[in-house]
């Protein structure tokens, strides 16, 4: 019944109530978005860098190298010579080396020349069809298949550079496999073998080197055809190589050694991405402070609303007291009223934040091929947020509730 009175009181003066709830909703929504965004962003980035200790690529910004080679976000800083890269790929410290050669794209989706290890790295499994074995055979990610409505056996021409740039009409690609959805980057990638990429851009010498298993970068080195390979490798280029190392020291030392001794650099994704997080972490932190500021204001708004009505409501309190209500019940009633507001604000904010994240996800899907899941619940942080929200309610109600508690009934009624 005290709860019912509190509930009815909450809505008896709807203007104040609505204002407080709007403020609370706004702050909770912003914080919820930040919590989910940060969590999922970091999860996705960290997942992608699994099993990649170093990225071998052209000299330039290491962050750019990591973003372009691992996350397909930026343009690559340049190409590296295959013969130079190969020496490091076959190094005994290397566990796996995944070479990447970027070339064309199709309808905005990148065609990446690489090995099967690349698909395995993203937990890619064929949903239908087979792996790409020959040149100009491709395996496509699940999103591409559904978005562009492509099937096994379909062919298409890649275009060089950005969309609507030069189209390579002499070499059609054939889809031989479609991957099952992984929720990872590979969903939006077209995978071919490396020689396809080389082939398409080797206009000057159109030699036959397709049959070679260049792209099989197993740790055992094919000594017998090494000589021959070397000749063919002249002029061949890779965009980057994703390295997983066996040797922990090498993870550190190669970052220094490689740029000193070669024309390449080795960037650590963990290091670069941490730096990136730290960078926009400052921005997120600022937005978060802003949201807590709004929450503080909503707390003040609740306090003012409760405090203002105390004067008119003291007769109501006196009345309840003469009919048997205790001081504690009055104290509780004010507290509950405030907590109602906060609970409503929290629930609305949680929902609004997720709606906002849904739209953010739509936008980022278009632009960065990053999607966010609005239905994920980050328990630890969201329960913490609920605690803070309710805490604001308790603090805002404390003084008004104490006033109701210590109300002098006799005086109130005598001076009516």
């Amino acid at each position, binding site marked *: *019944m005290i709860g*019912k*009175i509190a509930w*009815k*009181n909450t*809505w*008896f003066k709807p203007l104040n109530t609505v204002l407080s709830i709007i403020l609370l909703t706004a702050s909770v929504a912003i914080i919820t978005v930040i919590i989910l965004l940060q969590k999922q962003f970091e999860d996705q980035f960290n997942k992608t860098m699994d099993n990649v200790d170093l990225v071998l690529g052209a000299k330039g910004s290491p962050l750019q190298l990591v973003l372009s080679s691992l996350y397909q976000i930026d343009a690559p800083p340049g190409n590296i010579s295959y013969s130079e890269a190969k020496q490091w790929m076959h190094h005994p410290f290397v566990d796996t080396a995944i070479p990447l050669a970027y070339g064309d794209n199709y309808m905005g989706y990148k065609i990446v020349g690489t090995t099967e290890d690349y698909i395995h790295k993203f937990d890619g499994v064929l949903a239908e069809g087979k792996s790409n074995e020959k040149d100009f055979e491709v395996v496509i990610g699940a999103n591409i298949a559904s978005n562009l409505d492509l099937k096994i056996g379909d062919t298409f021409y890649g275009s060089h550079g950005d969309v609507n740039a030069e189209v390579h009409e002499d070499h059609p690609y054939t889809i031989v496999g479609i991957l099952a959805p992984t929720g990872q980057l590979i969903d939006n990638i077209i995978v071919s073998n490396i020689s396809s990429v080389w082939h398409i851009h080797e206009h000057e010498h159109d030699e036959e080197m397709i049959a070679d298993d260049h792209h099989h970068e197993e740790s055992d080195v094919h000594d017998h055809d090494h000589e021959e390979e070397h000749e063919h490798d002249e002029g061949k280029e890779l965009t980057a190589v994703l390295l997983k190392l066996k040797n922990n020291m090498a993870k550190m030392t190669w970052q220094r050694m490689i740029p000193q001794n070669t024309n390449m650099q080795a960037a650590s994704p963990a290091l670069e991405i941490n730096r990136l997080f730290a960078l926009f972490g400052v921005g997120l932190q600022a937005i978060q402070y802003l949201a807590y500021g709004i929450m503080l204001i909503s707390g003040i708004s609740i306090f003012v609303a409760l405090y203002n009505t105390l004067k008119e409501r003291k*007769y*109501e309190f*006196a*009345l*309840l*007291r*003469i*009919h*048997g*209500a*205790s*001081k*504690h*019940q009055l104290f509780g009633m004010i507290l509950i009223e405030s907590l109602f507001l906060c609970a409503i604000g929290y629930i609305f904010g949680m929902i609004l934040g997720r709606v906002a994240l849904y739209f953010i996800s739509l936008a980022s899907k278009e632009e960065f091929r990053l999607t966010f899941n609005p239905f994920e619940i980050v328990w630890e942080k969201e329960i913490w947020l609920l605690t803070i929200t309710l805490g604001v309610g308790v603090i805002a109600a404390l003084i008004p509730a104490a006033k109701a508690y210590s109300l002098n*009934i*006799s005086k109130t*009624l*005598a001076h*009516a």
Partner: protein
Amino acid sequence: MITVKNLTFSYDHTTVFQFPDLQCASTEGLLITGSSGKGKTTLLHLLSGLLQPTTGEVTIDSQNIFHLKDSVLDNFRGKNMGLILQKSYFVESLNVLENVEVASWLVSQKKNTSKAKQLLSNLGLEDHWYKLPSELSVGQQQRVNIARALINEPKVILADEPTSSLDDQNAIIVAQLLQDLAKEYQAALLVVTHDQRLKDLFSNQIELS
């Protein structure tokens, strides 16, 4: 049954109120009169335990109410005393019926809806259950107060100027009604007033001086 003995009270040690001993049995009515400043309201607040006296005791059903602890006294008051105040107060956000029910809930944690409806109907308010108190006339509001005071079947009904805001006709009706209800519910009725119109209606009277 309510008994008052040696009751004195002072707000600031300069003015001391000394109240006469009095007694009022169940079903009886007692009119306490006195001009302004004689402590009528103070007496009523002492009788209901809202104020602590300097000396003396108030006994209701052989319980000295000043021996009760805070929250026990609150509950005792709700259960055994029906207070009718000069002005009508309500929980503005609750409707008429809920305003009466709340008194039963505060005492027993149970809403006595049927009793509330019956009381309101007896007082001619059966058409106003679901209205807000602010939608009623002053006379109707006073009757809602009376219904609320009676819902827990109190041992004592304490009325503070119950008729001062009513016209002659209504004043007499309300005074008569209170006495009838006191008989019906076996309660002692104490009316504190300066309203001269009630003098002829009560056989037992005390004047504060």
